């Protein structure tokens, strides 16, 4: 069923009894042209683009639990492309462009809101850093503006400009903003399903069948599948899958935390982040403040971060925005993010023919969902990277052509 104002009105009159399920729950077949492991945003997007752009529809997406139940449904929903390196600018800015037209393409309300994103500077070093970043962004054709503390105050009237963390200026990206994260998984799932893709939930991949260096099948908790093309988009779990296929990935799993407050009346219509004090703040359409924190340093799969990180982010938020001092936090959670040595993702072929990866996005993969999925689909369909993903090969760790966003992606690591 195509969603429109007309179908909404019709279903409202008929009592909302006839909405079809957004996707099927098909029986898994014993053979597919391609299998994608991981039913998060990237995996579902890859399946959708395989069908739409490459005409490959005999595809299964295997999800260990439920689709969008991992980091896709657990992030702070922010989109931006304020990166330093040209490879990153190309990748993330393409994603911002794609988000702009995706709702119409998928016929699904993703609540795309390019509301503006401020990256605050609190000291001389920060000012130099955002200056350098802004110029890099100009050079790469990405929108960036350096603004004054007074202009910051226009965006966020209740910010404290002269407290312990004085605001000396900010880097503004007007095209930055937020998107409803669950809707991204659902929208891609629905669109992929309508093109004939099988989404298999509660299906764990337990191994690979590999013959003379080529993949010929996948072992799952629901039985074996014959296929000669496999895309892995399983975030940090990709290392475990890679090990089962006999190769290693330069990824470590670390916890990243976020908080959500009680709902408030609308007070903040932009995203504000701050490198030095690591306050990462926006207000959802439900009225909750969504606050992102930093990662713990050590490997952890516990989906729980250190309390000192919570304390750091809360103290920074209260110092900058004293108006929130009486606010109560409703939820706090940790996700497991897949961090690479240069903080840039892997969109790459692997030592096994026919196995491709789209992982290692670390703390910022959500914003790149369309572009990651499209690049993975291109690689699965053609056995070659597209122009955006070519620099993101695993080979860069052997040639030295790193894409270093370690200190450069807009948040402190």
């Amino acid at each position, binding site marked *: 069923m195509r969603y429109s104002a007309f179908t909404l009105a019709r279903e409202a009159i008929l009592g909302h009894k006839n909405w079809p399920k957004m996707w099927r729950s098909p029986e898994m077949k014993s053979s597919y042209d391609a299998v994608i492991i991981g039913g998060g945003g990237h995996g579902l997007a890859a399946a959708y683009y395989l069908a739409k752009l490459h005409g490959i529809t005999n595809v299964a997406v295997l999800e260990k639990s439920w689709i969008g139940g991992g980091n896709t449904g657990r992030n702070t929903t922010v989109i931006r492309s304020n990166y330093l390196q040209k490879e990153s600018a190309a990748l993330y800015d393409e994603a911002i462009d794609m988000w702009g037209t995706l709702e119409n393409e998928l016929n699904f309300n993703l609540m795309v809101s390019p509301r503006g994103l401020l990256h605050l500077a609190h000291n001389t070093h920060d000012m130099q850093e955002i200056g350098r970043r802004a110029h890099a962004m100009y050079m790469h054709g990405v929108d960036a503006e350096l603004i004054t503390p007074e202009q910051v105050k226009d965006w966020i009237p209740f910010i404290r400009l002269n407290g312990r963390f004085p605001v000396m200026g900010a880097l503004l990206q007007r095209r930055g903003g937020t998107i409803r994260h669950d809707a991204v998984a659902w929208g891609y799932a629905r669109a992929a399903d309508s093109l004939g893709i099988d989404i298999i939930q509660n299906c764990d991949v337990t191994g690979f069948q590999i013959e003379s260096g080529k993949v010929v099948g996948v072992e799952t908790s629901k039985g074996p599948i014959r296929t000669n093309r496999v895309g892995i988009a399983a975030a940090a779990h990709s*290392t475990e899958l890679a090990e089962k296929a006999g190769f290693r*990935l*330069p990824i*470590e*799993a670390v916890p990243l935390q976020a908080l959500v407050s009680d709902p408030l009346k609308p007070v903040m219509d932009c995203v504000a982040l701050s490198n030095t004090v690591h306050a990462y703040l926006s207000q959802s359409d439900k009225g909750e403040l969504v606050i992102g924190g930093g990662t713990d340093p*050590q*490997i952890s799969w516990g989906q729980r971060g*250190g*309390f000192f990180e919570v304390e750091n982010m809360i103290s920074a938020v209260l110092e900058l925005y004293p108006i929130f001092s009486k606010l109560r936090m409703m939820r706090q959670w940790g996700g497991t993010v897949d961090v690479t*040595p240069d903080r840039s993702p892997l969109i790459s072929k692997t030592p096994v023919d026919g196995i491709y990866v789209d992982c290692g996005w670390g703390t910022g993969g959500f914003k790149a969902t369309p572009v990651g999925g499209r690049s993975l689909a291109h690689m699965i369909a053609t056995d070659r990277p597209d122009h955006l993903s070519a620099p993101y090969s695993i080979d860069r760790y052997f040639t030295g052509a790193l894409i270093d966003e370690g200190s450069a992606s807009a948040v402190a690591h």
Partner: protein
Amino acid sequence: MLLLDCPWCGKRDQTEFSYGGEAHIDRPIKPVEKSDSDWGQYVFFRANPKGYHRERWMHAQGCRRWFNLMRHTVTNEIKGSYKPGETFPPVSPKENQND
């Protein structure tokens, strides 16, 4: 938050320590004989287990000395810590299961 056991100072909050990644990675003894692939593996590739992990920590706001620690990456259970050069009882395969 972890309670880490510095072999010299005893148990302290994690905030006193800095993390140094996977332990027991030896620098290649004959560097010139190593290929680019070997160097890439040595510099960038690390274990990412769901289970016990031997890792390096430094007591940055205490004695500032490095030590090794064995910790479970799912439960955060700490099996023990030991000084550089010391050996620590290896885990049996049964103990190294994911849960």
